[in-house]
């Protein structure tokens, strides 16, 4: 071991010498060594690596020592060397030290010789007394030289990152300056500089520059290395070909780039894909047919961009006039198209068909000075005019390049292989591959090992088992079967996963997991994977499903993200239009969190509201609103397969599900209602109204400000009444501007200025009187309903009630009022169990209004809703619906008030908070009679309303307390103590809490009497008919159309509404 080391070192010496003599030789030497003693060498490299790192650290100190005691340093190095080695082979220590000594002496001598040889010229230029330098000086000099050589040797021997880092220029190093010189004279200038350097040196006024470099590829510039700019200026002074003015510093970071040599591009070979660099075909994909490396030319195959019409014209004219194609340059470039023989004939272009001896004597068509075959243009070009570096044709390009007529011809073969040859490392161990080229074509196997050139494949074939064959990667193609689950690892669809539905040679069609769309990808770009991803969902600042601005007037939703572009569903409601948009084409992301639109019934639609499309091409679709822009909604329908499930519709084509109630046209309706209701309803409305007044328009699902109470107002609240109107700004920086109000709160208004494409926020009091005053003469009192508020507070019925105090509890007590609210209540809200919230949104009282006439008129009809004069359809629940997003804190404060006040004032035993109370009314026989007509919900006052039994939790509570849920026709399980459980149907619920039950699942058996404690509801199944046993919907019947955990989705019989109710409140009805 030690010996080997030693001999290695000797070799190293040789290296050093030779290196000084001839760099090329030295390189060869290294290669030789590599072959000879690779192992030892690598070991040594490793060792030296560590040694080197130390050196780097000590470098500075060493340098100081170097001068005074170079020999010492050598020894130190040697001993350091040995120190490490001791552990390995201590026996050789002595020998090695000797060796090292010899080594140095030898080196010294050799170096002198070398110096003599190599630097004669230089020496002669040294000052006189230098020639008599004493031996010590010489040695010092040599040591310096040697030290550097050794250094270089180290560096040469290995290339670790650390070392590379250490070599990078730092602030301490001389800087690089770029000077301008006459183009074409770069070399000359640098030689001149060198000459000048020498001459000046001779004269004893050395130039203080270190080097000068002219780069072949950089025309008109020269680099000079020096510590200071002044030195450079000094050096270039008076040189004609160098511009005296411009001396630019090259930043340290870029210094390496100046001298780094770009790797030679991949050799252009037959069948490689290239792109044309200039001319008509600039940027076009071409395929190399033939290469002549000597003459630096290639024949490439292109899709012709030939305008045959023009050509025909020119050819015919050309016969008479001779060419005048001055304007040819300005012509737009013709689209790429294959040449069609028929077309040629039609245009009477004469075609010569000749053999081309250059191309194996194949037949080509010649016309117009061009050469064609099979519709392709064959063109001889200089290798310089084509670019093969990093050309990865996209699928579309390849498909276009593929002539539609040749099915699976030779070219389709070239398709995957051409790609394969471009992409290194596409094969990974374990990949299933198939051979597509060569003698072993169609052989299948698995990749065993991949190295730089070859892929080692273990064939699947039994007879070849055990052997491993090496292939070039272009001979292989990954092998996939239909149904495989794969992941795309490159290309436009990078990141997507899916299942293969079709396999072609070189490409597959996969069905994306997320979008359920077909994607065409190259086999080279996919790997088998069980992972399911959504694919890319971010491009720049944009994310999937973002609303983006495309130009002034167009917006769209990103429905798919590809590698460098997005697919955007444009905001055109009449048809689904999808654009592929590059990142730079997207102006900006739009935030529409606070925007609203109106539906057909002028309900306000906000984000996440569920709407159903009732008109237009997407009629019947429904889903949550994802984006809103200028009355256009983007809806996400899970069942819609195209465009990622997104639909673009007009707001006016939709109806909001879940019963957001319109307030905007309430005035008229209200009046109507009031007429209907006579004196009774009026006060209630009025009493409610003060509290609601601040936000009559504010019924957004966001339910902002639900917590506000009475006159208290919060700036955040939305005022949709103003939205859409035109306003003028009175004062402030935007004084005089007019604009459309896009959003309004109590304090601020956001106005889209007419004169500038800009939305600004201004204070309300800055608006012109027309708008501003409306809101300034008394807070919310100036809303449309305002007169009624006044009336409300003056109502004779409750004269003493201040509006703040919930006199409006009253109606709840009134049985006739109860039904009104039912039905208005969306189950969602109840479920959300945010007891106190929903009520104070205007939804509540508008519903109240709507319902009024009918309830008043025929208050027992379950089906009152369709008959409601003002009746709108309040469709299915809004999951994530409205109203209940209110802040609980606020709600509490609110709900608290009614409970305090209502209790004392009316002497109601229980405050609305108590579970029993809200549930109470339906349970009492008297009130119960009203219940059929109450398809949901109860009173209208905020506090009580929130607390009413619609919330399942309360419903349950009521049930457990009362335990008298039994209703006729419900199927129950009877468990009498000591008996088997039996199924029966309730025939009659007695007032004493017992039930008469007919046994048997459809009630055909014996009659028994059981208490509620012995009964248990039979849990209904999907599609069962049900009867609701608790809650305000008690006694209503419906059909269970779905079960979601503990909730049942019920389609009510009477209203056909879809409701979500707690399963425990649903009793299965006997089939009959």
């Amino acid at each position, binding site marked *: 071991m030690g010996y080997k080391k030693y001999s290695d070192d000797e070799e190293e010496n040789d290296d050093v010498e030779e290196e000084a003599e001839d760099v090329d030789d030295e390189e060869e030497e290294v290669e030789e060594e590599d072959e000879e003693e690779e192992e030892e060498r690598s070991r040594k490299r490793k060792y030296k690596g560590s040694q080197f790192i130390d050196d780097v650290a000590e470098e500075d100190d060493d340098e100081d020592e170097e001068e005074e005691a170079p020999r010492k340093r050598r020894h130190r190095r040697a001993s350091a060397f040995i120190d490490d080695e001791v552990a390995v082979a201590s026996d050789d220590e002595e020998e090695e030290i000797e060796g090292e000594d010899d080594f140095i002496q030898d080196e010294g001598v050799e170096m002198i010789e070398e110096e003599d040889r190599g630097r004669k010229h230089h020496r002669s230029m040294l000052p006189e007394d230098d020639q008599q330098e004493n031996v010590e000086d010489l040695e010092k000099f040599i040591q310096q030289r040697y030290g550097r050589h050794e250094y270089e040797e180290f560096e040469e021997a290995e290339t670790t990152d650390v070392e590379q880092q250490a070599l990078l220029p730092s602030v301490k190093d001389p800087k690089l300056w770029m000077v301008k010189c006459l183009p074409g004279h770069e070399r000359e200038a640098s030689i001149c500089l060198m000459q000048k350097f020498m001459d000046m040196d001779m004269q004893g006024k050395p130039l203080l520059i270190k080097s000068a470099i002219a780069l072949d590829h950089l025309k008109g510039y020269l680099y000079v290395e020096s510590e200071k700019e002044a030195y450079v200026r000094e050096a270039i002074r008076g040189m004609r070909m160098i511009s005296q003015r411009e001396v630019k510093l090259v930043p340290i970071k870029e210094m390496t780039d100046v001298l780094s040599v770009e790797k030679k591009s991949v050799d252009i070979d037959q069948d490689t894909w290239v792109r044309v660099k200039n001319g008509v075909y600039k940027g076009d994909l071409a395929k190399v047919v033939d290469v002549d490396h000597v003459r630096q030319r290639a024949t490439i195959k292109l899709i012709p961009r030939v305008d045959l019409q023009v050509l025909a014209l020119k050819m015919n004219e050309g016969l008479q006039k001779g060419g005048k194609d001055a304007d040819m340059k300005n012509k737009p470039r013709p689209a790429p198209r294959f040449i069609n023989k028929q077309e040629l004939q039609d245009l009477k272009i004469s075609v010569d068909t000749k053999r081309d001896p250059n191309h194996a004597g194949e037949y080509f068509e010649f016309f117009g000075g061009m050469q064609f075959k099979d519709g392709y243009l064959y063109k001889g070009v200089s290798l310089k005019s084509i670019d093969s570096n990093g050309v990865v044709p996209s699928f579309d390009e390849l498909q276009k390049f593929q002539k539609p007529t040749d099915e699976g011809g030779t070219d389709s073969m070239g398709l995957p292989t051409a790609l394969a040859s471009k992409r290194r490392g596409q094969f990974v161990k374990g990949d299933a591959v198939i051979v597509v080229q060569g003698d072993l074509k169609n052989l299948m196997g698995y990749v065993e090992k991949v190295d730089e050139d070859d892929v080692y494949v273990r064939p699947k074939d039994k007879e070849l088992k055990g052997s491993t064959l090496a292939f070039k990667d272009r001979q292989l193609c990954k092998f996939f079967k*239909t*149904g*495989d*689950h794969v992941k795309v690892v490159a290309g436009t669809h990078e990141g997507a996963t899916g*299942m*293969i*539905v*079709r396999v072609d040679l070189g490409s597959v*069609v996969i*069905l994306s*997991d997320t979008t*359920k*769309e*077909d994607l065409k990808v190259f086999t080279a770009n996919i790997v088998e994977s069980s992972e*399911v991803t959504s694919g890319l969902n971010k491009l720049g600042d944009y994310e999937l499903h973002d609303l983006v601005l495309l130009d002034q007037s167009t917006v769209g939703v990103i429905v798919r993200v590809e590698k460098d572009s997005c697919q955007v569903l444009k905001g055109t409601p009449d048809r689904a239009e999808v654009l592929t948009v590059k990142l730079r084409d997207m102006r900006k992301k739009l935030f529409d969190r606070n925007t609203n639109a109106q539906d057909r019934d002028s309900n306000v639609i906000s984000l996440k509201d569920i709407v159903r499309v009732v008109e237009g091409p997407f009629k019947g679709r429904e889903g949550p609103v994802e984006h809103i822009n200028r009355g256009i909604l983007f809806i996400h329908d899970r*069942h819609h*397969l*195209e465009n990622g499930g997104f639909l673009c519709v007009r707001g006016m084509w939709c109806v909001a599900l879940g019963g957001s109630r319109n307030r905007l046209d309430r005035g008229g309706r209200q009046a109507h209602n009031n007429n209907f209701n006579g004196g009774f309803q009026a006060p209630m409305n009025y009493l409610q109204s003060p509290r609601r007044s601040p936000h009559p328009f504010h019924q957004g699902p966001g339910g902002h400000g639900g917590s506000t109470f009475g006159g208290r107002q919060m700036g955040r609240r939305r005022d949709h009444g103003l939205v859409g109107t035109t306003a003028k700004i009175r004062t402030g920086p935007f004084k005089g501007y007019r604009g459309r109000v896009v959003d309004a709160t109590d304090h601020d208004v956001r106005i889209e200025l007419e004169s500038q494409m800009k939305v600004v926020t201004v204070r309300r009091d800055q608006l012109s009187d027309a708008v501003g005053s409306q809101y300034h003469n008394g807070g919310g009192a100036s809303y449309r309903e305002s007169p009624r508020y006044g009336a409300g507070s003056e109502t004779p019925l409750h004269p003493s009630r201040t509006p703040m105090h919930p006199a409006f509890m009253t109606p709840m007590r009134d049985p006739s009022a109860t039904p009104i609210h039912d039905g208005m209540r969306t189950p969602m809200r109840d479920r959300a169990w945010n007891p106190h919230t929903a009520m104070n949104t205007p939804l509540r009282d508008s519903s109240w209004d709507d319902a009024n006439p009918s309830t008043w008129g025929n208050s027992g009809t379950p089906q009152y809703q369709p008959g409601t004069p003002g009746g709108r359809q309040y469709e299915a629940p809004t999951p994530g619906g409205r109203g209940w997003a209110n802040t609980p804190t606020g709600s509490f404060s609110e709900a608290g008030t009614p409970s305090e006040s209502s209790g004392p004032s009316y002497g109601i035993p229980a405050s609305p908070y108590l579970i029993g109370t809200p549930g109470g009314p339906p349970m009492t026989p008297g009130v119960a009679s009203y219940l059929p007509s109450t398809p949901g919900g109860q009173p209208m006052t905020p506090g009580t309303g929130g607390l009413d039994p619609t919330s399942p939790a309360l419903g349950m509570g009521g049930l457990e307390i009362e335990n008298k849920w039994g209703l006729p026709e419900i199927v129950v399980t009877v*468990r009498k*103590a000591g008996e088997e*459980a039996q199924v029966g149907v309730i025939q009659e619920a007695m007032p004493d809490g017992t039930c008469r039950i007919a046994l048997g699942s459809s009630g055909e058996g014996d009659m028994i009497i059981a208490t509620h404690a012995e009964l*248990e509801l039979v*849990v209904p199944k999907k599609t069962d008919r049900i009867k609701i046993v608790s809650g305000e919907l008690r006694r209503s019947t419906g059909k269970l159309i779905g079960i979601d955990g503990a909730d049942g989705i019920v389609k009510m019989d009477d209203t056909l509404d879809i409701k979500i109710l707690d399963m425990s409140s649903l009793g299965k009805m006997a089939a009959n």
Partner: protein
Amino acid sequence: MFFHIYLERNMQLHPRHFGPHLRDKLISKLIQDVEGTCSGRHGFVVAVTAVETIGQGLIRDGTGYVTFPMKYQCVVFRPFKGEILESVVTMVNKMGFFAEAGPVQIFVSNHLIPDDMVFQSGDVPSYETSDGSVRIQKDSEVRLKIVGTRVDATEIFCIGTIKDDFLGLIGNPGGGA
């Protein structure tokens, strides 16, 4: 494919259910919990057929819930690659059609529909042969072969083909083939 297998599960039961109906409650809860679920390993649990054992309950600290180890027998349905299934078409679009075989959703891409059948849009989108003799539309019954499955936590999604002998339409919604 259907399997009748034993599975085990720990059921947590609220103390309010303790009483004479404990066992029934447990079983009904088990059924409620497992029927219709899907696991990648076993597929869809179609029905619980029997409860083998209910072990000793263990009171959970802090909650009062009691955990019962239950062993039950159930019928599971797990689709496999290469399996032939009969299914009902639920949706037809230009990319192919979706069909359901019980709980399993199967997508048959248009690449996996015989080439002579082409998509006909219109009121009732369908795939039709040129002579109109075979027509696959919503609610048609189709025999297909599963070529790929993707197992998620909560569903198994399959890709099927009808591009093979004896596969394809077996019944139309109106009755008859």
